[in-house]
C-alpha cells in the first residue's frame, strides 16, 4: 500500500510513493473542487492544500487508518474546500468592488477537439442536443427540464445519460477512453 509505505518511511524519503499517491488522487480532488468551488483556479488551490496536509500527516504518522487513505483525502478535501470557498468568495467580492481585471492563469483543462465535439453534438437527435444544452450550458436540473418538456424527471435523467453516452461515443470515435 502506498500510504503505508509513506507512513513507514523516513519523512520525505518515499518520493516515488508520494508521487504515485498524488497521481492517483489529485485528479479526484480537482474534480471535487470543480464541483464544489466551481472555479478551476480554486480547484487547483484545493489540490495543493489537500496534498500538503495529506503528506504532512502521513509522514508524521498521524493518519489513523492508512488503508483508507481515499477516505482521509476526501475528508480533507471537504474541510479545505469549506475554507477555500470563503476565501474565494471574499476575493470575488473584492474584485467586484475594485474591478480588478488581473488575469490569473489556471492549469489547462483536459480539453477535447472542439470541432469534433461541435460536429458530434450537431449530429445528435434534436431532443438529445437540447437536453445537453439545457443541462451543461443552462445548468438546468432534471426537474426543471422535466417541467419544460412535460416529461417525468426520471425520464429526463435516463434520456440525458443516453444522450451523453452517444456524444461521448461519437467524440471518442466509438471507443472508450
Amino acid at each position, binding site marked *: 500500500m502506498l500510504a503505508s509505505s509513506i507512513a513507514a518511511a523516513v519523512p520525505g524519503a518515499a518520493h516515488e510513493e508520494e508521487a504515485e499517491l498524488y497521481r492517483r488522487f489529485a485528479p479526484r480532488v480537482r*474534480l471535487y473542487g470543480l464541483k464544489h468551488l466551481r472555479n478551476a483556479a480554486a480547484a487547483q488551490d484545493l489540490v495543493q492544500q489537500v496534498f500538503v496536509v495529506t503528506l504532512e500527516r502521513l509522514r508524521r504518522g498521524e493518519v489513523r487508518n492508512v488503508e483508507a487513505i481515499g477516505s482521509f483525502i476526501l475528508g480533507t478535501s471537504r474541510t479545505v474546500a469549506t475554507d477555500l470557498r470563503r476565501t474565494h468568495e471574499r476575493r470575488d467580492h473584492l474584485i467586484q468592488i475594485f474591478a480588478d481585471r488581473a488575469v490569473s492563469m489556471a492549469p489547462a483543462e483536459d480539453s477535447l477537439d472542439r470541432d469534433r465535439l461541435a460536429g458530434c453534438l450537431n449530429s445528435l437527435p434534436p431532443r438529445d442536443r437540447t437536453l445537453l444544452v439545457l443541462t451543461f450550458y443552462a445548468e438546468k436540473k432534471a426537474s426543471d427540464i422535466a417541467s419544460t418538456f412535460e416529461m417525468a424527471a426520471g425520464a429526463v435523467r435516463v434520456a440525458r445519460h443516453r444522450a451523453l453516452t452517444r456524444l461521448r461515443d461519437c467524440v471518442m470515435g466509438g471507443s472508450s477512453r
Partner: protein
Amino acid sequence: MTGEQCSRGGSYGDLLDYWVGDLDQDSAERVEVHIFECAECANRLADVATMAAAVAEAVRGARVQSIVSDAVLNKLSRDGVRIRTYAPEPGTFIPCAIWPEDDLVVSRLRGDFSGYDELTLVLKADDGPELSRNVDIPLISGTREILTATSASHLRRLPSMRVRLIVSGRRGGTEHVIGEYGLEHGGAMSR
C-alpha cells in the same frame, strides 16, 4: 437509471446526476466516497466533467444548432453572444441576412404545436432540395413558438436564397403541416 455499472457496482448514471447536482445530499456524499475508492469511476467522472465543459464551451461559442429556450438565449446574451432574431409569420417570407457582428441567428416560429406526437422541422430551398430535417424536436410546454438557434458562421456560407422552414407533426397517425415560414436569405452582409 441506465443499468451501466463499474466493477464495484457503482452506477455511471449516478456520476452524471452527481455532477449536474441532481442527487440529494446523502446520495451525493455516497457517490463522493465511491469516487475516492474507485479509480474506474473517478476516470468516468473526469470524462463527464470534460464533456460537460466542452458542451458548455461549444454553446457559448455559438457552434451548436439546437432548439433552445428563452432561458438559454438570456444566458447566451449575458455571456456576450450576439444574437440576431427573425420571427417570420406562418405563410410569409421576411428578409434576413447575417451581419459581421452576429454570432448566432435565432428563428422564432409561432404556431399552435400542441397535441402532436412528433414534431419535425425541415429547412428547404424554396424551389429546391431539403437542406436539413430534424425529426422529433422538443416543444417547450406552455409556449406557442419553437426557437431554433443556428450558428451565424454556418449561415454565412449559404448563398442568397429563399428558404422555407416547415414544421409538421403527427396526429392520429398522419403527418400534418402545422406552419411554413419563409426567409429571404440575403447572404452575408458587410458594413
